[in-house]
Each structure stands twice: as C-alpha cells, then as structure tokens.
C-alpha cells in the first residue's frame, strides 16, 4: 500500500503517456497524431516534475522563512523540453498543411491509397 501512495503519481503519468502514445501510433489522421504526440510529451514532463517534488518543499525561489525547496533542475530541463515540443509541433503542422495542399487529404489510409493508384 505504501508503494501505491509513493508511486501513484508516476503511474498516472505513465497512463497518460500511453494514451498519447496510442494516439500517435494508432490514428490515421495526421493532425490527431500530432495531438497524441503533444499529450505523450506533456506527460513525460509530468514524470520529470513529479520526481523533482520534495514533500513539504516549496517553489525554488528564495523567500523569507522558506527552508525546504523542490529540486529546480527538473524544472529547467522541462522548460527546455516544452520549447522543443512546441517547435516539433509547429514543424509537424507545417508539413500537414503542405500534405493537404499536395494530396487533398490528411488521412493516412487515403494517402496510401493514392500512392498505390499512381504507381
């Protein structure tokens, strides 16, 4: 039981990751895949931030009367990772727009069907 209370945060993060991951690999719509990717990455951020938390700690900003801080390093890493995430999303979306212009669809199965017709 102590394991449950000690780890539930991580387990939920893993559940969320897997929901996102499923959307990436199972969906045929190119935008939906990117949404899944977003959720996948955001949930990984939760994993990092959870590990930085200290019981009874507070935000890592020096203030009067605060002695216990949560670990600032995961926060820094995730700030970087969020930026990377939005960069990836914007490039992916730009590709989706171009694919739509070139093929008229953003559904994977229709794209594959067009491919086999032209060959």
């Amino acid at each position, binding site marked *: 039981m102590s394991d449950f209370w000690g780890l539930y945060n991580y387990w939920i993060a893993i559940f969320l990751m897997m929901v996102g991951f499923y959307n990436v690999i199972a969906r045929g719509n190119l935008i939906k895949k990117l949404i899944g990717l977003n959720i*996948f990455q955001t949930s*990984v951020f939760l*994993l990092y931030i959870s*590990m930085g938390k200290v019981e009874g700690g507070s935000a890592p900003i020096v203030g009067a009367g605060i002695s216990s801080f949560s670990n600032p390093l995961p926060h820094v890493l995730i700030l970087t990772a969020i930026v990377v995430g939005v*960069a990836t999303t914007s*490039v*992916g979306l730009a590709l989706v727009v*171009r*694919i739509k212009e070139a093929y008229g669809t953003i559904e994977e199965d229709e794209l594959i069907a067009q491919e086999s017709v032209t060959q």
Partner: protein
Amino acid sequence: MNSHLPIVPIILPMVAAPLCMLLRRRTFVWGLATAVTWVVFAACAQLLLQVSTSGPIIYTMGGWNAPIGIEYRIDLVNAYILLLVSAIAALVMIYAPQSAARELPPDRHNLFCAAFLLCLTGLLGITITGDAFNVYVFLEISSLASYAIISVGRDPRSLKAAYNYLIMGTIGATFILIAIGLMYMMTGTLNMADLAQRLKEVHDTRTIHVAFAFLSVGLTLKLALFPMHVWLPNAYTYAPSLVTAFVAATSTKVSIYVFLRFVFTIFGADYAFTTIHLNAILVPLALVGIFIASTVAIYQTDLKRLLAYSSIAQIGYIMLGIGMGTVTGLTAGIAHIFNHALIKCALFMVVGCIVLRLDSSRLEDMAGIGRRMPATSFAFVLGGLALIGVPFTVGFISKWYLLLGALERDWWPVAALVLLSSLLAAVYIWRFVEVAYFRPAPDDATPISAPPLSMQIPLWLLLAATLFFGVQTDLTAGIAQRAALWLLAGGP
C-alpha cells in the same frame, strides 16, 4: 585561443545560420556556408590530432565544473566522429550549389543553408557533449533541421516522408528523454562521466533496466536498425540528392555514436553484455536486417531507394560488430561507421549527378548511361565495389574485421552469413551495372555533358579516400581499434 577550440565546431555554424538566413544573394549564402563548414572541418581535424596525441579534452561551459554545469568531453571516439561529420559536410557543401540549383525551390536557398548549418550544429553538438540531457537538446536541433531539409524535395512524397520521419523521430527522442529521466532519477546527475560512476551502485534496479531498454529502443529508432527502419527509405529517396548524401552519411552514424557512448561509457560493457545480454538481441536483429534489407534492395526500381535499403543493411553490419562486444567486433563497427559514410556519401553524390542530367533517379531511365556519362557511372561502380567489400577498398577492411570478430567468438554461422550477404550486395550493385552498361540507350537519347566540376571533385575525393584508406589502414582501422579499446575499458 587554442584552449577554446572545442566550441568552434558548434558555435560557428550556429552563428552562421542566422546570418545565412538574412543574406539574400545566393552566392553569398553558399559562400558563407561553405567557408564555415571548412573552418569547422579544420577545427575538428585539429581536435582529433590533439586528442590522439595528448588524451581527452575537457571544456567546461561557463566555467562551471561538471556535474554542476555542462562540459564537453572529447575523447578518441567522438573526435573521430566529429571529423567524419565535418568532413562530409565540407565536401557536400562544395557539391551542393549546383545540385541545389536543380533540386531546390529557387527562392529558399538562404533558408535551406540555415537549416543545413543547424543540422550540422546539432550533429556535432550531440557528438561533442559530455552531458546526457544536452544530447537530447542537440538531437532535436539536428532532427528538426533534417525534417526541414528532407521535406524540400521536388516530389511531394518528400513531405510524407518528412512527416513520418518526424513522428518516428520524435517518438524515438521522447523514449530517450524518458530513459534520461529515469537515469537521472536514480543517480541525481546528468553528466556522462558522473553517471557512469553512480550507475554502478544502482545497476541491479529495475528502473535502470527499463531506462536501458527505452534508451536502446529510442536510439535504434533514430539509427534505423531493422525493424525500426521504416522511416528511412522514403526519407532518403525523396529528399534532394545533396541532403540524402549528407544525411545518409552522418545522421544515423551520429545516432550509432550515441548508442556506443551510452552502452559502453555510461552503462559499461559489463552491464550491457552480461546483465542485459545485449548481444542476444542485437546480433539476430542485425543479421535479419542485413538479409531482408539487401534482398529488398535488389527489387527496387529507383536507384536512390535501392541505396537507402542498402544503408539499412550496412547499419546492420555496424550493429553486428558492436553486438559482438569484443575489441575486434567493435573495431569493425567503428571502422565501418567511417567507411560506410564515405561510400554512401559518394554513391548518393553520383545519383545526384545523374539526377542533375537525367532529371530522374529511376533505374529504367538510366539505360545505357555507362556510355552517356562514363565517368559518373564508373564512379558508381567503384563505390559499389567498396560497398560489396572488394579488397583494396575500405569496405574490405570493415568486413575483414567483422569476419575476424565472428571467428574470434567461434560464431561460424555469423561469419558465413556475412560472406553470403556480400553476395547480395553484389547483386544489387549489378542491377545498376546491367542497366548502365548492357542496355542500349534509348534512340532519342541526346548526348549529355559531364556534371560540373564542383560536383565531381568532392565525389572523386571521396572515392579516392575509399581507395586510400583501403590500403592505408592506420587512420581508419588504427583509430577505430584504439577507440574500441578505450570504449571497452569504460573510458577514463
């Protein structure tokens, strides 16, 4: 100034990229980019020289000692990869302007050059750093830039290829991010040398096993080991030829380097091969990959695609060598990273020359090309021979070490399979030879002028290198062996 040499290869292209974007005149753009890549190449050569004579170099960022800050840690292994990547970039940059004039949208050369330089920054940054999270950041720079430069191919299918690469690549990178997170969680550090120290204490925890698994899966996605290779053939086929020549020779190689670094330096050969039994997974996958990819290559109708499948097979050879876990096997793997990069870059450059003149990379359009473009076709044959592993080419050196490594471990079947697979390579190279030399050119064929010198010179330089290093083995195999010993000893 010499003490600041390590940052030159990273900062220079990073600063040059925005300048490239702002320049509008095409000649200035290419001139700047080319000059930068050559300076970077010189810096990397100097670094390799320094490392091989006086041992590893450590450069601390902002003067903060690791693990508090980030540091560069350059040893023989990454100096070797740095040299490889920068050399390929420098040669591709000479080759590029003419090929780009044909294959790129005319008004985007400045953006393309900026993206290209960023890709180079990313690749070099991954290689040089001594910090695990920093690897992730620069991995994303190089990946995003390569999605961009792949997607500008003329065929709209390059867009789909880039999209698929983006999805697969991001999944791979996120897996790596998870693995780094788990490792950080158990040790409290991100510095590679520090990680190596502290991981020893937690080697038997389930968290670290999972971290190792995620890292391996993420990296195999990036380095396109069978069966994680599905993004590769389309990306290589539809990208502009110069991009294919660059990406094929560097991007997967850098991922292999990261794999080596994590497996041998951070986790340690002992952990990877006795606790996890990495060889039991790697060797079969590599062998199956070699055979399937080579066989698929034989049936391709597009020369670029054929070479792309051949790349997957060649990555199989490299991973086979690494999977042996011995000095000889590792030497074969590391040497083949270099050798395959040379050969593949040359071969894709040949295809670029053919595309420049024929406007097609389909084999059926190349009938009789042996007489219409004699020098170019001959270059392909030379590169093909090196790919097969004929003596006096670099391909032979790596195959030789691979065989030695297999025999050392008494893996007779593996040795036999490696030999057999060379036959498959011979078959797919023959496909080009047959079309080029034994089929008549179409009747309406007009005479074709030879490709411009700026494209031929780097191509022939690369081919000369494949022959030179096939005879003079000190630089490639010699350094590879020293690097292998260094890695197996677990670094410093």
